[in-house]
């Protein structure tokens, strides 16, 4: 129970960082933290007490396996996180080239 609470605390920190911080890179970091928290939450759901990894072996076949389904989903979600981060960094770099700052308030001031 407490492990889920800790995971959601990490998620809440990510949201907080996204809302409050004015710097573009800090927003990218906040989003990264949120992605990490959700990925961890899925795998926590699939964990089985002293289970082992869902890889079959020649010798001792099917043991007490962890749930493989969330692992398959989170492999996709990790790469989604990478794709979104790459796009965000590209746009942030481009904004930096135009406004010469990463700070939202200055950008709004310069935009007029």
């Amino acid at each position: 129970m407490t492990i889920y609470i800790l995971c959601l605390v990490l998620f809440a920190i990510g949201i907080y960082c996204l809302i409050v911080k004015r710097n573009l890179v800090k927003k990218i970091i906040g989003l990264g933290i949120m992605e990490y928290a959700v990925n961890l939450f899925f795998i926590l759901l699939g964990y089985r007490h002293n289970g082992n990894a869902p890889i079959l072996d020649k010798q001792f076949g099917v043991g007490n396996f962890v749930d493989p389904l969330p692992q398959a989903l989170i492999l996709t979600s990790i790469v989604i996180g990478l794709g979104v981060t790459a796009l965000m960094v590209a746009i942030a770099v481009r904004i930096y080239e135009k406004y010469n700052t990463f700070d939202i308030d200055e950008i709004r001031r310069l935009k007029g």
Partner: protein
Amino acid sequence: MLPIFVIIPLGCAFLIPLASKIRQGLGRILATFAAALLLFFSLKSIFWLNAGAKVYYLGGWRPPFGICMVLDGLAVLMLLVVNLVGFLALVYSWDYLKRYTSDNLYYTLFSLLLAGLNGVVISGDLFNLFVFLEITSIASYALVTFGTEAEELEASFKYLVLGSVASTLILLAIGFLFGHVSTLNMADIADTLRYSPAKYLLNFSLALFIMGFGLKTALVPFHAWLPDAHPAAPAPISAMLSGVVIKTIGVYALVRVVFNIIGFTQLASSIFIGLGIISMVAGALLTVGQWDFKRLLAYSSVTQIGYVIFAIGLGTPLGIVGGLLHLFNHSLFKSLLFFNSGSVEFSVGSRDLHKLGGLANSMPVTSATSLVASLSISGIPPFCGFWSKLIIIIAAFQANHIIGGVVCIVVSMVTLAAFLKVQKYAFIRKIETLASAVKEVPISMKISMLILAILCIGVGLFFNSFISTVIQPAAQVLLEGLNYTAKVLGKG
């Protein structure tokens, strides 16, 4: 053969970078051919359907095992919306892209956008819906910044941040549902939820879904990104965004999850109605004060989405029919209005209503089609907007929701006032300085605008036959709600 809706745009998206290396214009022809094929198949899919739902097992696995694709009344309606507006936007951008560089990147991203939208509509698996929703979002983030100007980049960054927050919230909601049910097929989830309901967890994931999809569809408390992102995008892209994207990944996904998986409870209905009314009122107030043509259209999108959500929230058969019809009509006249604003910007170069004027005689086609669109968005009788707003107002009064009905009427008055202002300033009033230099837009932009105007009038005139063929089966899917599982899994 359901997967063709995803194979065609995906294959074309992978081919365009190669094709454009061979010959420059090839990418454009390939993309338009793929969109035409998609439109043909989505029109054909209306007649494929005999009451039930067509289920396609991917990889040969039966539903709970693998992923399945489901085509039912609601999916047919959304396919029609997506591929119709998509094809016309592509035809429009044949000439519109003279203003932009490297158009093969544009056509690749556009085909990926179509692939994502079609993937969302026909997917029968919750996580698969999230993956294709993510493809649509990333493609639309990149397309909003297609002009790489300063304010486009800033608007797109805000849209990207809020869109990614929405996606993460949706993924967390899927996590909670998965934790409780540990299966991902939509029909299977609804089936297991019926036997082991966890009231509090369902309400919490419902709240997360509404926040996530509400952000994607720009309902009022979450609409901060829309008024910046839509005007910044190139005109065909803001037409796709307003007309199709916020409806498919927002309204359609929310409605599919709430009606067919979690079940449409009284709580959900009151939330929908509340959000709908707030969106209508706030959107209308913001629309009136605008002087930038595209920002005015973006704010009016918030109002119209408020109409749709309010109508579907009523839950009565008439309300749902009215909501879905308004969803279809809105995609028609809103994309037409964005095309008009794009043409005005294309030939005059500015979107500010103060500077525009007297374009009626120098741009006949654009002004005529924008007159048709403005009249239909404000619900004037012969046009399509009138019937959907009328049905929604009647449904509101039938469900004795007086406040809602009155709000609908007042808001449609305000919309009428706003769009008459647009007509007067942009097209009818005379100012000498501008009128002479302006010439009409090229042929491909005229064609798509004319087709949309004809459709607006057509749906307006033959509305009851249109309702019975397309809207009624879609409303039936929502009304049946949880026995969606019977159709997909084939058991009770």
